[in-house]
């Protein structure tokens, strides 16, 4: 099963809608609650990242019997130093984003914590692609 979503940069009203839909579907599919939580928290943080930093982004969620793969591709400024961005506490977020309750440099580390696999590719000035895989362990 594939689910697709689009996010506009700066849209903090809609950020979270994709995660909410995915959560509902995973619940219906009787996916274990702990895995659902990992998936939706990772996805929610990426949604907030797109709203906070990019011009726009597209999300694809592929739900299979043994794993859930999420690809978040955005058009935006990209990440110049991915290692730095992965450090807890490092942030380039604006004041507006901070006022929304985010922007403390916890997003990417939080995504990593909630992923079995996480890959980031970024081209400065163009955009970023984040791929997150969570497997259903027996």
């Amino acid at each position: 099963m594939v689910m697709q979503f689009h996010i506009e940069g700066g849209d903090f009203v809609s950020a979270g809608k994709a995660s909410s839909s995915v959560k509902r579907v995973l619940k219906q599919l009787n996916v274990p609650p702990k895995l659902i939580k990992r998936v939706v928290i990772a996805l929610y943080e990426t949604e907030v990242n797109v709203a906070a930093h990019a011009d726009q982004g597209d999300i694809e969620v592929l739900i299979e019997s043994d794993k859930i793969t999420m690809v978040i591709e955005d058009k935006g400024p990209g990440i110049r130093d991915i290692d730095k961005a992965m450090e807890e506490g490092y942030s380039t977020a604006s004041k507006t984003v901070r006022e929304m309750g985010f922007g403390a440099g916890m997003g990417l580390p939080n995504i990593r914590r909630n992923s079995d696999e996480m890959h980031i590719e970024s081209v400065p000035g163009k955009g970023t692609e984040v791929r997150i895989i969570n497997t259903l362990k027996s």
Partner: protein
Amino acid sequence: MGMQIGNIAEILEAKVLTPELDTSREVVHAFSSDLMSDVLTGDYHKTVLVTGLSNLQAIRTAEMSDISEVIVARNKEVSKEMIELALENDIVLLSSRYSLYRISGILFREGIKPVY
């Protein structure tokens, strides 16, 4: 030992903004934060979120974190959209005139446990 969210509303002199939902639910733990990324790092069970942040993302964060009760401190304005989103996700939403510190202190005194 916990407390019903309805009783918590009473001792905090809080308004229940989602009267449609069951207020007999038990709360055992509380977590107070304005930083949603911090809330998103925790594991919660029967936990109420106390926050000074009154926006849609506070409700979204509760939804993603499996938190079913949220208290907004200091009578911050709560939008219609926040209430709708809370109802949609079965989240009891309270608004109290007390500060984050005072709410946390009262809940602690009443035996509500911290998460960490």
